[in-house]
């Protein structure tokens, strides 16, 4: 591990001067150590990736840069001046602009006003001149080679355009460093290209960019250096050219990822779910697929490829315009998700926080919510005995780690939360489970646990549709892989006969 790191240190002398150096930064919250003795250097005009798993300390480091948190130890050197900590105002004065994942835009205001909003705060007595504001905003956009309607309300723009607005706003604030938190998570291939182009322009203006991400394949193309964090410590800083994704995931997780492929599917040949010519205008078209009991069907594709929309249709929440769905050979019409649940379908949403679980409520209620009507006894009251029997059974079987089933589900770790989601659906005794990005926000160790559960369920005869944009996940966890692109299924693979690289190329063709 020291080799490339040393190379990186040597590399420093030849490159641009350091703009910001974080030296020996430590930070703890209560009893939890978020960062331990971390060094992090950003040079003027460089594109730097900050990589690490969830909870590795990335966001704490960013918040220290933004002046939101003060470090316990260490110093922050900006242009050679050392500080023990930054205030939010000092951070912005130094030219540090953070673009959070939620972008922090004002959806109710125009593009121009969003870009120039800082003026309202800084020059709070001068009357607002709408026309001048728009001219300024257009100036900023033209510096980045962007053209967006300045008068349009931001809430009506697609995500990719909003991201550009956020970058423009950072530029308008005289940024010298733009930090982007998970910028590519919701972008399509083209949009990512456009984003990277914009970052190139920033670079040409001498503005440094830091990408914070745990998925770096795209941004690696233009990155110069990569700093990897793990468990609050810096693993090292490496030239991007020395890092490929396997090496990166090894560095991020600390162990080699060597999952074997699934053995070929050898179960019941009669399909439980058949889909023919399923279409919904603007979302997906002519989708055919078949799943058998005990089979794990992987579907991969980028966000916006129609994969989630298709999943929602199978779950009865997004009625198709054309085509048919058959379960056990019988044609079904799923008008609501209640009908889908009754037909034996469960759906684990990719958005666990807002769609998967009711976070403030108890673990027990989150498990029984799908079967409430089956638990009633006298007078329509819920039978407490049957309820706790059910809850205890699934907490035990899925190894949900908690002191009490009546604690809010919010208090659990990501992996344990996902187990609760699975428990909710297993309580309905489903025949088909749709898992939409089931390991998003789940730590590596916990991922393995989720995969084991999925395997066990498949072995019990549940048909599983595994949707994911993490290529190695579908490759190693499925019996068969379908690729979705632009609303169509463009390819079908046997995992044994396709390499990760090939698969990746087909996805972003």
């Amino acid at each position, binding site marked *: 591990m020291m080799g490339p790191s040393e190379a990186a240190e040597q590399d420093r002398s030849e490159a641009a001067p350091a703009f910001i150096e974080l030296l020996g930064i430590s930070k703890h919250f209560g009893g939890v150590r978020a960062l331990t003795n971390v060094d992090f250097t950003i040079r003027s005009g460089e594109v730097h990736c900050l990589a690490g798993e969830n909870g590795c300390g990335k966001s704490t480091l960013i918040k220290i840069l933004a002046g939101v948190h003060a470090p316990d130890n260490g110093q922050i050197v900006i242009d050679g001046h050392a500080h023990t900590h930054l205030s939010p105002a000092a951070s912005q004065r130094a030219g540090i602009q953070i673009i959070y994942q939620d972008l922090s835009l004002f959806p109710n205001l125009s593009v121009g006003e969003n870009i120039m909003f800082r003026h309202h705060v800084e020059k709070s007595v001068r009357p607002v001149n709408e026309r001048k504001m728009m001219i300024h905003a257009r100036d900023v956009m033209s510096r980045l080679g962007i053209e967006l309607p300045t008068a349009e309300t931001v809430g009506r723009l697609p995500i990719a355009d909003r991201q550009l607005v956020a970058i423009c706003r950072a530029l308008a604030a005289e940024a010298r460093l733009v930090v982007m938190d998970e910028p590519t998570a919701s972008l399509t291939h083209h949009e990512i290209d456009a984003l990277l182009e914009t970052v190139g322009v920033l670079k040409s203006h001498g503005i440094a960019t830091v990408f914070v991400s745990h998925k770096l394949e795209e941004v690696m193309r233009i990155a110069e250096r990569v700093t990897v964090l793990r468990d609050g410590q810096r693993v090292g800083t490496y030239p991007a050219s020395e890092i490929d994704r396997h090496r990166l995931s090894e560095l991020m997780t600390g162990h080699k990822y060597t999952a074997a492929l699934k053995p070929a599917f050898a179960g019941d040949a009669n399909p439980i779910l058949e889909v023919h010519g399923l279409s919904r205008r603007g979302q997906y078209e002519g989708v055919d697929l078949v799943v058998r009991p005990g089979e794990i069907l992987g579907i991969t594709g980028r966000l916006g490829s129609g994969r989630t929309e298709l999943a929602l249709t199978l779950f009865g929440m997004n009625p198709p315009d054309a085509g048919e769905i058959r379960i056990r050979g019988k044609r079904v019409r799923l008008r609501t*998700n209640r009908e889908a649940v009754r037909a034996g379908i469960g759906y684990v949403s990719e958005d666990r926080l807002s*769609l998967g679980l*009711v*976070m*403030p409520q108890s673990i027990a209620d989150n498990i029984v919510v799908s079967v*409430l*009507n089956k638990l009633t006894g006298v007078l329509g009251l*819920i039978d407490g005995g049957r309820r706790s029997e059910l809850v205890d059974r699934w907490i035990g079987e899925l190894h949900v780690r908690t002191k009490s089933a009546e604690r809010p589900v919010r208090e659990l770790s990501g992996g344990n939360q996902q187990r609760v989601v699975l428990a909710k659906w297993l309580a309905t005794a489903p025949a088909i489970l749709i898992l939409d990005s089931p390991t998003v926000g789940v730590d590596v160790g916990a991922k393995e646990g989720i995969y084991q559960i999925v395997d066990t369920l498949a072995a019990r005869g549940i048909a599983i549709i595994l949707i994911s944009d993490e290529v190695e996940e579908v490759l190693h966890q499925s019996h068969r892989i379908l690729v979705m692109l632009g609303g169509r299924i463009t390819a079908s693979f046997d995992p044994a006969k396709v390499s990760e690289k090939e698969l990746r190329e087909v996805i972003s063709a």
Partner: protein
Amino acid sequence: MPSDLVSSPTVRSRPRFAAWSDPTVTLLAVLVVIAVIVFAALTPARFLSGDTVRAIAFQMPELGILSLAMMVPLMSGGLNLAIISTANLSALVMAGVLTNLIHPTSPPWVIVAAILAALLCGMLTCLVIGFLTGVIVAFFGVHPILVTLGTMTLVKGVAVLATSGTVIGGFPPAILFLGNGSVLGIPASMILFVLCAVVVAMMVAHTPFGVSVRLIGSNEKATRYSGVATEWVLVGVYVVSSLLCWVAALVMMARFNSASAGYAESYLLITILAAVLGGIDPFGGFGRVFGLFLSLVLLQVISTGFNLLGFSPYLTAAIWGATMIIAILIAVVRDRWIARIWPAKVK
């Protein structure tokens, strides 16, 4: 459910005040005890007497049943501003049926039939109002404040239009008994209230409907994704709320021996106060009837005590408003202490 009335600058998923769903009960119980001790000390002979208890028992049911009608929508993350107007219209409908069917010479069976007919019509009125409110909230996704603002105006408008602002009065003794009669020394209205409270408590805590309401109150979308028919649960919420208004209407018309479009309007915002003081999370998802019950007892003890001390009823209402602010304050201070003593607990 929309939780967009937040103007809390410290953006958090739930307000501080809601964080103590169980400690609320303890806090309220302590406040009730303190209030009782203070008033007992100030008016030694009179406060701790049967009269006081009886006065409280007669005054509580009206506000209590209406507060239950407010509580259920609050727990679903909504609000029902139309409870008072619904109760008034329902009372007017019942009063209309009674006064039209019963004459001084009517034989007993006519009176019984008229009462049954009146009850049925009053209930149907509430059912229709609740159903329409629920449908607009659930299926059109309109914010409950807006919908119930509309239904409140409309329902009151209908009541005013039908009566031209007059009062309808003169009911048979069986109805009046609900307002002023007692069974074994317990006021009939109190029995009605306790019955409603028990039913709502069981419903909220132990039925699929109640669990769904709480889950919807915290996150409607996630609840719908779990296969709950959230739209129909929401319709149910407003129907239940309206039906409680029907019971409140009975108690009100029995107590006043009359019905009008404009009774009890000052109670509207007080019911929200009582519910939130009782630990019902104004964002939805949490609350228990027992907390609401304690908060009603506290409010009544304060008002009866001040009454005995010879204070104006207006001062009592001012104290009620202040109680709310003080209760929030206590919760905030307590949270800060917990944060200081036990920092790891707080993120």
